């Protein structure tokens, strides 16, 4: 469904991805882990069209994404839950949701609110009054309302209390069981590797390791990517 070939990306004059290869099939849940500065966010932003790659290709369902505007890529069915949530603080919860829903019918809205009941309680409130965890749920709801073919989450657990992280991952688990295709980027390697069928370890702008869940759990290669070669 999603393919990255030889991707090189520069951000603010510095090359942050030195040729990344990756692929993601329909219904797969893949994680990308690695220390900060590895280029994980740049990778996601490139897929979504916010950054132009300096070399290489990104293709989605056979279609090259290079040169498309972000809104066009979004309309192809890719939804991003960005790092730091980036909900529209000056809009109400309901408005945030409405913006995303775009005539997708009230059925979808009902379903999503069912999965995230706390949002239903907060519909009339300004979004910047929500707690971090609630904002994260709002961000995910917003992405879900787009009925995406591919759901991308950038550091969904960042800045959340452990209990909230459980809630968020509980939702992701539900989505997984419904067959959603997801790409999850996290700095917290353990949780992600445990959660995803397959993970990729990105460090220093390059893929250092990749494999199925069992292969990566407690793998020295993962440790090394984070903690250095001496380990």
């Amino acid at each position: 469904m999603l393919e990255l070939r030889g991707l090189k990306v520069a951000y603010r004059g510095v090359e942050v991805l030195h040729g990344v290869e990756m692929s993601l099939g329909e219904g797969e849940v893949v994680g990308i882990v690695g220390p900060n500065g590895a280029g994980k966010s740049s990778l996601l932003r490139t897929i979504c069209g916010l950054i132009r790659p300096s070399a290489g290709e990104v293709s989605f369902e056979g279609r090259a994404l290079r040169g498309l505007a972000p809104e066009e890529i979004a309309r192809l069915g890719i939804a991003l839950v960005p790092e730091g949530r980036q909900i529209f603080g000056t809009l109400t919860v309901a408005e945030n949701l409405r913006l995303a829903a775009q005539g997708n019918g009230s059925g979808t809205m009902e379903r999503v609110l069912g999965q995230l009941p706390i949002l239903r309680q907060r519909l009339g409130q300004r979004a910047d009054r929500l707690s971090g965890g609630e904002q994260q749920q709002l961000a995910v709801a917003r992405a879900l309302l787009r009925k995406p073919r591919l759901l991308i989450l950038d550091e969904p657990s960042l800045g959340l209390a452990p209990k909230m992280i459980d809630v968020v991952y509980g939702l992701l688990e539900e989505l997984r069981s419904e067959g959603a295709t997801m790409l999850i980027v996290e700095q917290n390697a353990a949780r992600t590797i445990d959660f995803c069928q397959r993970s990729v370890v990105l460090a220093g702008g390059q893929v250092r390791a990749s494999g199925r869940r069992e292969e990566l759990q407690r793998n020295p290669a993962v440790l090394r990517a984070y903690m250095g070669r001496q380990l």
Partner: protein
Amino acid sequence: MKGGGLRSPASAAASLVVPLVLVGLTVAVGASGTPSFEDTVTMALCNLIVVLGLQVFIGNSGVYSFGQLGFAASGAYAAALLTIPAAFTALQTPDLPSLVADAQLSPLPSTLIAAAASGLLAAVVGWPLMRTSTLAIPISTFAFLIVAYNVLANWDAVTGGNSGLVSIPRTTGVASAGIWAAAAVVVALAFKWSAAGYRLQATREDEVAARSIGIGLMRERLLAFTLSGTLCGIGGALAVHQSGTLSPSTFYFAASVTTITMLVVGGARSVFGAVVGTLAVATVNELLRNLEEGAHVLGLFSIGETPGLAAIGLGLILLVTMVALPQGLSRGLEAGEVGGLRRRLRSRALPTPPPAETEQPGLRPVGGPAGGLRAARVSLAFSGLQVLRGVDLELAPGEALGLIGPNGAGKTTLVNVLSGFQAPDSGSVLLDGTSVTGWSPARLARAGLGRTFQAALPFAGLTVVESVAVGAMGVGVGRRRAVGVAAGVLERLGLDKQAQSPAGLRPPGDQRLLGIARALATGPRYLLLDEPAAGLNDEERRDLVAILRGVRQDFGCAILLIEHDMNVVMDLCSRVQVLDDGKTVLVGAPEEVQAHPAVVEAYLGTSYLEGAHA
């Protein structure tokens, strides 16, 4: 003045001589034509002086001022009132103080006084305006222009009001205008190449980086603004002595647009551009003016009378330039730099620097003998998040301390607090025993604290050696010595071969090093590096480690290193401090920290050590 190591003597000479030759040619052309043509050329030269005034401020600061013609107006009115015969002054401006009204000076003193008056006005007006934010300066200077117009148009008894002034002696000829224009070229170029000019250009390239090397935004802008006002005042004074009449609308919106067009078309960043742009636009303007009367074009079709054609044409030229050629005809380069771009890109050895710099510039010990950089119980919250919770940190003189921790732990925020970019909610920062909490980044830089940023923040429009030298200039070192310091630093970091190439074109690894070099040029005793290895490939990272090792020994500064790459941290640091969620988790020797379960867990989220030591 001629570059002093920042450019080859040939390049410097060319940059100076070519615009002067252009001015000379213009004078010659003007003198050889009809009297009315000579008047037109003389006016163009007066415009040139004003445009050079614009270039000094706008070109070097990157900030647009729309009010400079207010200073041309003040110069014009001052010069006019001082030279109009007393009898006429009494008629036109009855309330004028007799000191001015009776004065009937010759052109030179009146121009000089006009220059001084405009300069003084610019300093006074500039002081509040330069304190407003970068975004507000274009608007507030525009307001000044309108205020100036308003005052001139309404203060009838002193300025002649809307009807303006007449009977101004016409003393400016093409030769005298040419001499003043040549002088203005020299002044503008001298400023651009001076330490003050470089400091201002640094603010244009990157405000944040400029502050981190000791540069005060407001001060540098005010200096250029004042110089700019002086030059504009001279241009106005000469212009009014060419035309013989003056009214408030002479130096108002239309003239502002014309002079800005001349600057932009030529290329705001270069003096050569200002000259080329002025001459080009003046020529086109004249051609269009002639067409306004109606003409046959190429014998094919005729244009009827179209007043305003010249102004429309100029507007279109400005628009097209902004869209298609924003750097102008000169691409922002001086005459000695144009065409030599290919030469610059090939490795170029530095011109021989002065004898090796052994003393560190900018060392001004604060408090007693070096006592280390300390953060004491620093707490900071923003956007509702508590980012730092009572963090302590100690960086002893000469040591290398690593600062690690997962994303969002507060490492960069802590460095921002240490370097003055953010003030803590509580707690304090001490530099060599003195409390420096709340000091500005520039002040801290001058006290011996340097830093780099996660993004390289290069001074893309300056050459490699200029980018580094301006670091020394930022902390008050004179230009000549600054170049020597830069030469030494570049050599240590292996960047000396590319000294003359534009910083913006260097590969990312070099730009990283440039940021470090620039900070080193300020002569810091404490150097804070924010993820210098981010985005580097394996080879570049190895080189960086080698360089950083050498830096401590050669420059004698302590290093605080934020890094995610453990290899770099382990290789360089004698101590490592681990931050997580705004608190210190552990401080200790690298090996101890690397294997500590709590640290591993902070990063990876679970105990990855079980069964990993296979």
